[in-house]
């Protein structure tokens, strides 16, 4: 067992990584997902409000405009946040590591050595499929809370990264 002394200056700097932005379609997808949910939510409230079958208590009727307003307000807030936050999400694939950065105020950089990857998953929900996007999930022995996920990749990029990981020599030999 030999350990060579590592020269600090020769090491890659985790902060000076050439990050790539996520796919350009990811931001509209995330924001439209929020609006789809809020519209469905408001629709249910409206239908309940105007349905002719059951007489609702007056308090509930009075609360209706307020509730719709709150849902609208929250959706706008989340959309604004996503508008700012999504460009902060970036990723980078190097020869040995997979990096992912995110966070507006607290910036987090996750680094996943490719040698430690146990398996890779491509996740595509119905909305992601409509936008031709995919999320790449990478599992290590660090446990499920430390699952490394890169959302908003174009399907082509995600497949390329997945193949790169699977073809990586270390992953193939270590299982």
């Amino acid at each position, binding site marked *: 067992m030999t350990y060579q002394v590592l020269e*600090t200056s020769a*090491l890659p700097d985790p902060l000076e990584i050439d990050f790539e932005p996520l796919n350009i379609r990811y931001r509209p997808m995330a924001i439209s997902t929020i609006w789809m949910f809020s519209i469905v939510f408001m629709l249910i409230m409206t239908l309940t409000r105007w349905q002719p079958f059951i007489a609702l208590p007056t308090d509930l009727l009075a609360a209706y405009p307020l509730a719709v307003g709150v849902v609208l307000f929250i959706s706008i807030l989340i959309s604004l946040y996503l508008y700012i936050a999504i460009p902060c999400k970036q990723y980078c694939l190097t020869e040995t590591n997979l990096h992912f950065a995110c966070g507006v105020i607290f910036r987090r950089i996750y680094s996943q050595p490719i040698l430690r990857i146990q398996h890779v998953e491509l996740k595509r929900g119905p909305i992601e499929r409509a936008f031709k996007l995919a999320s790449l999930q990478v599992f290590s022995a660090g446990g499920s809370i430390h699952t*490394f996920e890169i959302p908003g990749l174009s399907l082509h990029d995600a497949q390329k990264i997945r193949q790169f990981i699977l073809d990586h020599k270390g992953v193939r030999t270590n299982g």
Partner: protein
Amino acid sequence: MDNDQIKAASNPEKWQKLSPIAVLYFIASGIKVAANNAIYLLPAVAISYSTVQENPQIWLPIVVGVLCLIGISSWLQYAFYSFRLINETVEIRSGVFSKTHVDLPFARIQNVTIEIPLYYRLTDTCCLQLDTAGSTKQEAKIVALPVDFAETLKKSILNKVQTENDSSQGKIANQQATHEQSPLNNENEELLNQRSLKDLILHGITNNRVWIIIGALAPFYDDVARYLASIAQQLGFDYQHFFDTQSQAAWQLGLAFLSLILLATLSVTLLSVLGSIVLFYDYKLAKTTDRYIRRSGLLTKQEVSMKRSRLQVIALKQDWLDVLLGRINLELKQNSSGGQNSNDLQADTNKILVPSVTQQEAESIVKDALPNNKLYETGFHSISKRFILRQVLWLIPFNLLISAITFSNSGIFGILLTQLASGLIVFLIYCRWKRWGYADDEEYIYIRKGLFGVDFYSFPKYKVQQTQFIQSRMMRKRNLATISIVMASGALTIPFINQLDGKRLLSSSLFTVSELNRSWM
């Protein structure tokens, strides 16, 4: 019965029944299940309370019925349980109505645990638990095996796992030599550590091991409380009168509470000592060429073995009492992402705990487990003082809010009290800051943390699974960062360190992982 077992052991490829003594195990687990489910019967009992009060003998048939049911189902479980060993695979068939068939190739078995419950002592049998990595469903327990047979089986499983993993010729030859020796001798085993009764009593005092007693008593809480109350009344101790604010002066009341707290602490400590002895009686930590083996237990004897290469992190934990007494709880942690058995420490095979060892003993175990480790020589860097500032910032709004509330209730005195409490919290934050420290060398990273006590962690860089570099805008201005290193046994975080140091720790870990290309298992 013994003859059957010996025959079975010599010809393991046929489907085998368990020894009839296994029924005891099924009965014991049946009673456990019944006791745990008894709570669902409470509504029924509550409704029929008056009827029961009138004729208490109605309980008799119910109890007899439940016991019969447990007996019959235990016997059925026993009758439908069979296992065989074929092609280096353990196959187990079980289940009365829903049948399960488990196939467990030796090569996939991670841990082998041998357990000898109290009721198996006389017959010299044991339970053999086989765990695979990760999934909880894929584990098997063979009950009531003769101890000798279980040991042989364990040896051949472990050897199989070893030969699968190592392809070097020398090692295989070594294992074949191991094979030929008698399985009864603990060959090649070297005793690393042993705990005496005194150590266990110390461990019980410094660590809370009450839960094992409490856990066992859980179904009887109400009865115990009622019993204690009735004893107190018989002794003429009227607790209602004792704590009556109208008839007692404040100092008397205070004294009563104080004595009650003392009494409670004393009894909890005694129970904890008892728990510690039950768990760790006759504790022995041994090592073979590639494994650590822990054996302990008063009622249920347990043997846990862990592959040395699976060791991820060593933790040395000292509570404040441990610091005073100079004792350390040493933990050898391995992969824990499966997360099973986390609520049952005795069955927890994710780590090996060596209770209350002395400094020298801890040092020798650390040196053995992690060669070239410099935990005892290294100097620690402290983290930034901004850590204190950050925590105090959280405190300020709470302080203002509580000050306002206490001011409106009890005037200036309230504010004074709040400030005093805040001062205490700030002091605690300072203590916490003082304990934080980190260091590294070519191979290992060392972390020190704690409040009154102190914990040390050390792990090899090449076993790192993932790293996180966390920095707020304010921290970036001050060149600070928080780093988090994910190991297979869990994440370790170092807050508020110099960003260059953080980068260096992370990049050297990532670099070591990819450069050495060594397996973490």
